[in-house]
Every structure is written in structure tokens, then in C-alpha cells.
């Protein structure tokens, strides 16, 4: 083949591939604009005031298309498919309790986005902000609203960089004191102090303003740990527990369990652990759940699964009975205020 025909082939290929690339980008841009318009049949979303101390309300990230996409919205907890009230506050991850909200959001930068954790008061006004080192993952507020915690994923900027690592911070909202990484806490494995260098901690769930549970991973295993913000300690309680979520009465933990023998690479199933007997109960959800579930009340778990708009919320009874059902389409990161 002559040099000329090679260049010609390359030019044609550049034109064709460039056309496909530009077309795909324009299509996505058009769809992004389309996402600003509500789709018929989707949930009814109106802008309005969202407050975090109103009882009997479910607050979540609205994923439905329209001008309020990715905003924090609320519905009455008893009518999850009803009209949504959207706040205008955008978050990737969100949680609220005790009238305090924590919002993990992307901040547009010149070359790349950065991320920030923002603490909100009951009227969603920003009270504090903290820069984050990576992509936001989990967020929780303690039941009394006096502590907050969040997890981000940090990755080394490398080819097919799969060496993700987590960083979990805990904040005392009264003093403003921030423990930047729970890896600095004293870690006790089966009661013995350890200092593993490969310790990763993620997915905090608060028992009260100072005590919490979380996932700790070291040596290729994951543990449920009991943490204490005042004593700065983590104690292992149980193995093979990820993303724990403490029940309202503090007796059980819902969590992702890595199931042996599952064919997939992501063999997580939703389980409930009784903290007194350490007995595990599988829920009726048979699909792989990659979320930190929340308790809607003492009996029902809510969690997200991928859906048409990115994520849908499902519910399943915590005692292993019943079957999963959709609770809210196009929603993520729900929280339920006290009745």
C-alpha cells in the first residue's frame, strides 16, 4: 500500500470516527438538555420549600428528569409516589437527621470538578463546608443531629485505576472538630490493638452523637466495627459486613454481605444482623445490593438499585419475610424524618 493511500484511509477514518464522536457528544448534550424537561409519566416535581425538621417526611435526591434533577426533594413518607417538592439544593449524596443535613456535592472547577461536604440547617442553609479529596460515596447524620460523617473514594490517577481507597471523616457539629480520617483511630481486632497499614473505613451509621458503627477492611476481610468519637477507637464486632445501617431501636444492623459461591464479582446481598445474638437474617431481596440501606421504620429497609433514571428506591421487610417492591422511581439517598 502506498503512503498516499494510507494517509487517505487515515483521513477518512478520522472523519468517520470524528463524526461519531461529535455526534455522540451532541446527542448526549441534547439529552442533557432534554433531562431538564420533565418526561410525561414521570413523577410530578415542583419547586418549593423543603424543611428537615418537619415530621413524617422523606427527603432524597431527585433523579427524575426536569429542571429539578439532582436536587434534594421531599415527599410525605406515607405517599412516596406523590408530588415531590424540590429545594433547589443539588447534592450527589445526602442524609438528614435531627434537623441537620449533610450534602456531598460536586463543584465545577476550571479543569476538573472538585467535591465538597456541606452542612445544612433545617431550612437547607449552608452552615459549614469542607473540601473533599475524592468522589463522595456515603453520608450520615447522627439521630440527634450533632454529628455527621461522610466517605469519599480516593483513587490514584492511573491507567484503569482500580486501586480505590476510602477516606471517612467524622465531624462534631457543636465544636466544629473534624476527624479527617477514621484510620487514625485506635483499631482493635477481636479486642487486640492493631495498626494495619491497609486499613480502610467506610459507611458510618450513628447510634448517638458519639457512638457509631462502620465497615473496616484490612487483610482482604471486612468487619463491622463499633466506633467511639470521644475515645477515638474502633472495635471489631463481626466479619463480612459492609455499609451497616443501624435500626432505630439500635438492636439490629442491616448491611451488604459478600455471599460465598455467588457467580458474580459483586455478590452482595442485603442481610440483617442481630447485635445481641450476632444472628444473620437474609432479606427477601435476592439481587446484589450496593448501597447503604436505611430503615424507614423499625421493620422496613429502603435501598437503591440501578434503574431507568440511574437509581430507584426499593423496600423489603427487615425480618426476611415478604418480597421487595419499588417504593420510589428516580430517587437516591433517602432519609426519613421522625413522625
Amino acid at each position: 500500500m502506498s503512503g498516499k493511500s494510507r494517509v487517505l484511509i487515515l483521513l477518512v477514518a478520522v472523519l468517520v470516527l470524528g463524526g461519531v464522536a461529535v455526534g455522540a457528544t451532541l446527542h448526549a448534550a441534547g439529552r442533557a438538555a432534554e433531562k431538564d424537561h420533565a418526561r410525561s409519566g414521570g413523577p410530578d416535581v415542583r419547586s418549593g420549600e423543603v424543611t428537615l425538621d418537619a415530621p413524617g417526611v422523606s427527603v432524597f435526591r431527585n433523579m427524575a428528569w426536569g429542571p429539578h434533577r439532582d436536587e434534594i426533594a421531599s415527599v410525605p413518607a406515607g405517599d412516596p409516589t406523590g408530588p415531590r417538592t424540590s429545594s433547589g439544593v443539588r447534592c450527589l449524596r445526602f442524609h438528614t437527621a435531627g434537623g441537620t443535613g449533610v450534602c456531598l456535592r460536586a463543584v465545577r472547577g476550571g479543569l476538573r470538578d472538585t467535591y465538597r461536604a456541606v452542612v445544612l440547617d433545617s431550612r437547607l442553609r449552608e452552615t459549614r463546608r469542607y473540601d473533599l479529596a475524592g468522589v463522595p460515596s456515603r453520608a450520615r447524620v447522627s439521630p440527634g443531629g450533632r454529628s455527621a460523617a461522610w466517605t469519599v473514594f480516593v483513587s490514584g490517577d492511573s491507567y484503569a485505576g482500580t486501586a480505590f481507597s476510602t477516606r471517612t471523616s467524622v465531624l462534631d457539629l457543636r465544636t466544629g472538630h473534624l476527624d479527617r480520617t477514621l484510620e487514625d483511630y485506635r483499631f482493635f481486632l477481636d479486642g487486640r490493638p492493631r495498626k494495619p497499614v491497609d486499613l480502610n473505613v467506610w459507611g458510618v451509621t450513628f447510634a448517638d452523637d458519639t457512638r457509631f458503627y462502620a465497615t473496616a477492611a484490612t487483610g482482604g476481610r471486612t468487619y463491622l466495627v463499633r466506633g467511639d468519637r470521644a475515645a477515638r477507637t474502633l472495635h471489631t464486632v463481626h466479619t463480612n459486613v459492609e455499609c451497616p445501617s443501624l435500626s432505630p431501636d439500635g438492636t439490629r444492623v442491616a448491611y451488604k454481605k459478600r455471599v460465598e459461591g455467588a457467580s458474580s464479582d459483586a455478590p452482595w446481598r442485603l442481610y440483617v444482623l442481630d447485635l445481641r445474638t450476632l444472628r444473620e437474617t437474609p432479606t427477601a431481596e435476592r439481587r446484589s445490593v450496593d448501597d447503604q440501606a436505611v430503615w424507614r421504620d423499625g421493620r422496613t429497609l429502603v435501598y437503591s438499585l440501578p434503574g431507568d433514571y440511574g437509581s430507584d428506591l426499593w423496600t423489603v421487610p427487615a425480618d426476611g419475610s415478604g418480597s421487595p417492591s419499588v417504593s420510589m422511581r428516580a430517587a437516591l439517598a433517602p432519609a426519613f424524618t421522625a413522625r
Partner: protein
Amino acid sequence: MYVADSRTTPDRTPDHPDTAGRRPLPGRRAAAVPGAVLALGTVSLVTDVSSEMVAAVLPLYLVAELGLSPLGFGLLDGVYNGVSALVRLVGGRLSDRGGGPKAVALAGYGLSALCKPLLLVAHSMPLIGAVLAADRTGKGLRTAPRDAMISLACEPGARGRAFGVHRAMDTAGALLGPLVAFMILRAAAGGYDAVFTVSGCVAVLGVLVLLLFVPGRTAAPPGPAPGVGRAPLRAVLRRPAVRRLTGCAVLLGLTTVSDSFLYLTLQRRLGLSEAWFPLLPLGTASAFLLLAVPLGVVADRVGRRRLFLCGHLALLAAYGLLVAPLGESAALCCLVLALHGSFYAATDGVLAAATADAVPSAVRGTGLAVVQTGQAAARFVCSIAFGAAWTVWGDRTALGAAAAGLVVSTAAGALLLRPAPAEFPPTSHRSPSVEP
């Protein structure tokens, strides 16, 4: 915190498209970088734009768009790394015995290109994990034949420069990729599918450049060298020069702390804000990009093995700055990253060039794979040992120990690599016949 570094064998890229086509100097110097090397550099540049686009948005895509956690990947990482190392040996061997390096490289680049559109349809962690594993297999397959082709395409005396140009182009692609991805996301909010589509188009372009512009047969015909026979691995390892080079790469690899640990130490020692953490690898890559070509030229002048050792002295200096009680300053951070980048510039392509000196062309791919896999395995062992040392002694003492180890292994390397009269000298004008 990082468990182990996935990037045990950094394969970052090089040069801006502009500078790739432009000749640094007219006349004889430009001729020192043959068209085949520029073509291979372009392939790497384009391919790295493609793969780094995906790597840059993947965590965000998983977490913000799919609501998944990327942590599952982290746990699978070790397996993929192991597979990748094995595949690299296979790729090296196939390139020597099969259809030649170009065919094997084409298969590797092609496999990775196929993976990009598959990301459009994979929406669950297992499928995405499988696609990434296939992508990595392609990468493992193509690396050794690609380096073999670079070494076969140029004058032995100019190999350092040729590998420098290639690595600089490769690193430029790695730096450009994330920018392209974020520009697409800026134009189309949530347009991850557009990022994957564009990445696929760019990858196909890379394969086409390889197909059209990289010669299939190089100047040095890979005729069967005496004693190669059916066991290229044994033939390679029977050569004392290869054994010494592999031994040296392994020895130095054992004291080369992984990038992740270095960045973590840097962040802690210098009290850097966490928000700066993701930018640290960019500092290393920038220094690598700027210095790869000049240091490649230096390698051709003073000897590749000597510069390889000097590169480790730069790393040693970086360790020293981190261990010394110098306080916290931005200048110190920049200096450490510059030293880290010059370490890569003085060792990454230079080791490949030095390996090419020591391995006959008929088994070049196998030889490159052996040395690089040995180095990667040693760095992985170092990661584990360094982690343990950190646990027991704390970061400063652990780094001090690594620095002490590096002093010893650099000294041992200097002994191992001292020029033996029977081997070819590094500069071409002294050795008319370089292929033994």
C-alpha cells in the same frame, strides 16, 4: 489508605501531538527518531487518551450515576494485576514466535478498543469488572511487543532517545485523556455514554495508526538466533547480561516504594490539604513528560545502565527530602514530585533500552517481558513489605528503611551492571555490530 499499588509498572505516556510531528532539530538529530517510533508513540498517545478518559470518569460514573460503589474493583485489583503480569509474558513470547510483534500488539490494542463500547452496555459491577479485566489483558498483551518494535526500529545508539520520545508521547496522552473527558462532561452533563463512545473512537484510531503506519517487518529481521530454539525464555535467561539486568531491576524494584505510598507520605509529611491529593500524580507525570526525551538522549551518551542507576539516586533524594525534618512547604512538595518524575524519566524507557541492548532481536519481546515482569513483581513485594514496615515503625522510619535499602541495592546494581568488555557499549559509534 492504599492497600497496594496497582501501578507497579507505570505505563504512562508521552508527547503532545504537536511536538510529535514537529522535529526538534532539522537534519541528523531528527533522523535519530525513526518514523516507526513516532508512529508507535502516536499509537500510545492516542490509546492513552482513550483509556485515561475512561479511568478519569469511572469513579464518578459508578458512584454518582449508577449509585454503585467502586470499592469492588479495589478488591479485584490484585487478581487483575496477576493476570496482567502473566499475559505480558505470553505477549512477549508470542511476539517472538508467532506472527511477529505487530500482530500481537494489534491484538492487544484491538482488544482494549473493543472494551470501550462494551462499557456502554455494562451497567453492573460484575460486567464492568469483566470489561476492565479484558481491557487490562489487552494492555498486558501489547506492552512487550510494542517495546520490542521500538527497539528494533532504531539505531542501537539512539535507543534511549527513541524510548524517551515514546514515553513522553505516552505520558502526554495520559495527561490529555482526563481533560478530554471533562470537556465532554462539561458539554453534556451526565454524558458518560458520550465519553465511552468518544473513547472507543479514539482507541480505534490508535489501532488504525498502528495498522497503517507501523512497519510489520523491521530493519533487523528476527531470524532465529543461535541457541534460541523452542525455549526463548531459557535462551533469554542463559545470557549473563540479561540475568544481571533482571537481577538489578528486581533488586532496585524491591526498594522502590509504590507511588501511592509516596503520595500518601508526601501528603502527611507536608501537611497537604486532602483536596490536593488527586493532583500529586499529575506533578510526577508532568516532570516525566518534560524529562523523558532529554534524559533518553543523556542515556545514549553516558550509558543506559548508568543513567538507570542515577534515576534511582533521584528517587533516593526524594526519599531523603521526605525523611528529613525540613518542615512543610509547597516548594518541597514540588521538588519531591520533580525528583519522582525524573526517576521515571531516567528509568522507565531507559530500562527498556538497556534490555534491548542485552537481548538478541529474535527473542526481544520475551526478554523485555521478563525484565519488566521481574521489576513489577519486585515492586509488588516492596509494597507489601513497606506496608508492614509502616505498621510496625510508622511512615518516617519505614521510608528511612526503604532509603537505606535503596542505597544498598543501588550499590549492588552498580556492581552488577559495571560494563563487561564482552558487551556492547552504550554508544553506537563504538559498536558497529550490536546484535550478537
